[in-house]
């Protein structure tokens, strides 16, 4: 059981992790998600006692890591695949760690077999590929056969076979009753591996819920309707008919309409009644990846700027790519629209004060009447629930946080540089 209470880490003026409170329970895989630079690695390092929190505390089994008796037998960690001395062989690297932890030397051969590195064990790790480095790091984590396991981006650089292996390994470790805490920036990977999700952005908690709840709360279905090209009046007519019937309509960049709140047969009937032909009427399910992107988009630190060549390209069909021309009704560069009827993420717009001090309050009328598409352009992503004025001093990070979204979010992040884990200090 890992428990963080009010965990905060500042590097000078930059707040890397702000007031994180969460628990990681045994017997399941807990995914730790967030964009690059959101504070995942910093949190991991604080759990392991490598970085000292500015405020708050984090404990494993009730004790801070540095005070754990027999720490390597209770906690194993893969922090960074590159955290080995390249001049040392895999075998000697693991042997020294085993000796340091008071683990019998023959355990080294066991874990080398588990990760499949037995044939290259005597080779210097300098020549290892990233995937082999990850395997070596996982071997080091498994060395003490510990109760608690932390993996920071374990599938980076692994081939599909390796990814499948890691996925099954995590699940097996959790099934044995261990606490497994895995960080990743890939939602799709976590959806397959994890049972529980902790999502952070810019060092703040965005979500702490089971994967099922996350899917239920964040993926909304919609229908895509396409009217014949070159007949914009037909499209407008259908739009008004659908809105009249109680549906929500959002134009997509390629001219299709995204409709929610109406069943497919009803849309067909309405089109028929309005005497409009349809080229497409198809059901869609918003993916988890998309839900995650929407949740974290305001918290992305590193956003690529528009490549000038994009101006010569046709808009991509389907979703607007960052940098593609954005039709009205869309949130702005890289912005994902808020799906009408979607439950706004209660964590996303939290005011900077700790949750218990500022109870989350739903924005007035958000369920009753979603705003018309034009208004939504200004409002996306989810309308901020009346941001309670931050109690006391306002920490720097949240000030730049989500609020009116796109333009600000796109401009802000340059200064919030990540403290890279591979930074050779």
């Amino acid at each position, binding site marked *: 059981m890992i428990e963080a209470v009010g965990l905060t880490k500042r590097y000078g003026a930059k707040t890397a992790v702000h007031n994180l409170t969460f628990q990681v329970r*045994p017997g399941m895989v807990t995914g730790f998600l967030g964009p690059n630079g959101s504070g995942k690695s910093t949190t991991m390092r604080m759990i392991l006692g490598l970085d000292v929190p500015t405020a708050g505390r984090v404990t494993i089994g009730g004790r801070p890591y540095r*005070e754990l008796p027999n720490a390597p037998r209770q906690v194993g960690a893969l922090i960074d695949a590159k955290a080995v001395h390249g001049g040392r062989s895999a075998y000697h690297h693991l042997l020294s760690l085993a000796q*340091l932890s008071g683990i019998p030397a023959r355990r080294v051969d*066991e874990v080398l077999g588990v990760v499949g590195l037995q044939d290259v064990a005597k080779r210097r790790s300098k020549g290892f590929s990233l995937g082999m480095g990850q395997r070596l790091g996982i071997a080091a984590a498994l*060395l003490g056969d510990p109760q608690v396991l932390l993996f920071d981006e374990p599938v980076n650089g692994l081939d599909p076979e390796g990814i499948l292996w890691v996925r099954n390994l995590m699940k*097996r470790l959790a099934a*044995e009753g261990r606490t497994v805490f895995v960080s990743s920036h890939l939602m799709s990977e976590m959806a397959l591996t994890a049972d529980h999700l902790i999502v952070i952005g810019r060092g703040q908690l965005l979500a702490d819920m089971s994967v099922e709840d996350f899917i239920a709360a964040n993926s909304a279905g919609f229908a895509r309707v396409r009217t014949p090209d070159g007949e914009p009046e037909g499209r407008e007519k259908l739009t008004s008919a659908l809105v009249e019937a109680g549906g929500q309509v959002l134009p997509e960049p390629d001219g299709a309409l995204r409709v929610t709140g109406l069943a497919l047969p009803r849309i067909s009937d309405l089109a028929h009644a309005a005497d409009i032909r349809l080229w497409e009427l198809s059901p869609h399910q918003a993916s988890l990846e998309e839900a995650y992107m929407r949740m974290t988009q305001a918290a992305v630190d590193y956003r690529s700027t528009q490549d000038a060549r994009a101006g010569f390209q046709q808009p991509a069909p389907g979703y607007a790519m960052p940098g593609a021309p954005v039709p009205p009704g869309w949130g702005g560069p890289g912005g994902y629209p808020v799906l009408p009827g979607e439950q706004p993420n209660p964590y996303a717009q939290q005011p900077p004060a700790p949750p218990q001090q500022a109870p989350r309050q739903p924005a007035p009328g958000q369920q009753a009447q979603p705003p018309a598409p034009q208004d939504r352009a200004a409002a996306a992503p989810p309308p901020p629930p009346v941001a309670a004025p931050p109690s006391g001093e306002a920490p720097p990070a949240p000030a730049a946080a989500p609020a009116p979204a796109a333009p600000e979010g796109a401009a802000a992040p340059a200064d919030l540089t990540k403290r890279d884990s591979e930074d*050779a200090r």
Partner: protein
Amino acid sequence: MTAPMTPPPAAPAPQHQAQAAGQPYWPGQAPAGGYVSPIPVRRATLGDAIAAEWTKIKSLRSTMWTLGTMLVVVIGIGTLIALVTYNVADDADFGEDSQILGMGFVGILLGMIPLLTLGVLTISSEYGTGLIRTTLTACPSRGRVLGAKAIVFFALTFVLTLVATTLVALLDAGLLADRTPNGVGGSEWVKATLGVSGYVAALGLLSLAVGALLRHSAGAITTMLGLVLLPPLLSLFMMAESVRPIGKALATYSIPSQLAVFYGAELGDDGPTGWTPLWIVLGVTAVALGGAYAAMTKRDA
């Protein structure tokens, strides 16, 4: 000290893995009480950390290179000087108080430099590669990690330097002892072997502490070389009346001068004599190691 390198063949697969393979995965349905490892749990000690450091230091080529260079330089230059002196000098060159073991001085002065490099690298390479995070995860006690590194490094360099200086001293004495009026005294032997080795190993330990404080290989090596080479150089430029005392102190307490004391050099009336240089360097090293420990405890790894 060394752990068995070859494990018993066909180590039986741990039982828990066999159990887990057959059992379906149900999130949250884990056995009560969490996971218990079948591997016997034993509290790790300083001895374990020393064994680990020994594995680390001997499994790197840089160790072999730096220590090999040290041995070649100390023994090679020492032998060369002894042979040249044997063939060129005549009996008139040896006075009452000539200290023939002092011919090992140049060799050890140059051979010291790779040792300083190794001392820095022992810890700064862990910071440079990020290995320190793995190490401190496996052993959260900073004191134990630093202590084990210091013990292993000091022991290794002391023993090897002792071997090299003893060989050179034996050669010097064997070739030239019968040509000096007084031969080679007992205290002269001890100082030129044990004393010099202790001084050089302590200096290596100081560079290990500097490496832990600066965490940057190139920076720490440069610092240590500067510490060895700059004071005698600076003292040359401090001949003006106003700064002469400073220049004199720099010359007296510079590392080459201090090392020369073990070979019987006289550093003026108020300079250190006998074993004093060793106590000075040990004191400085202890302070630096204390600082390194504090830095490792306080700073983020």
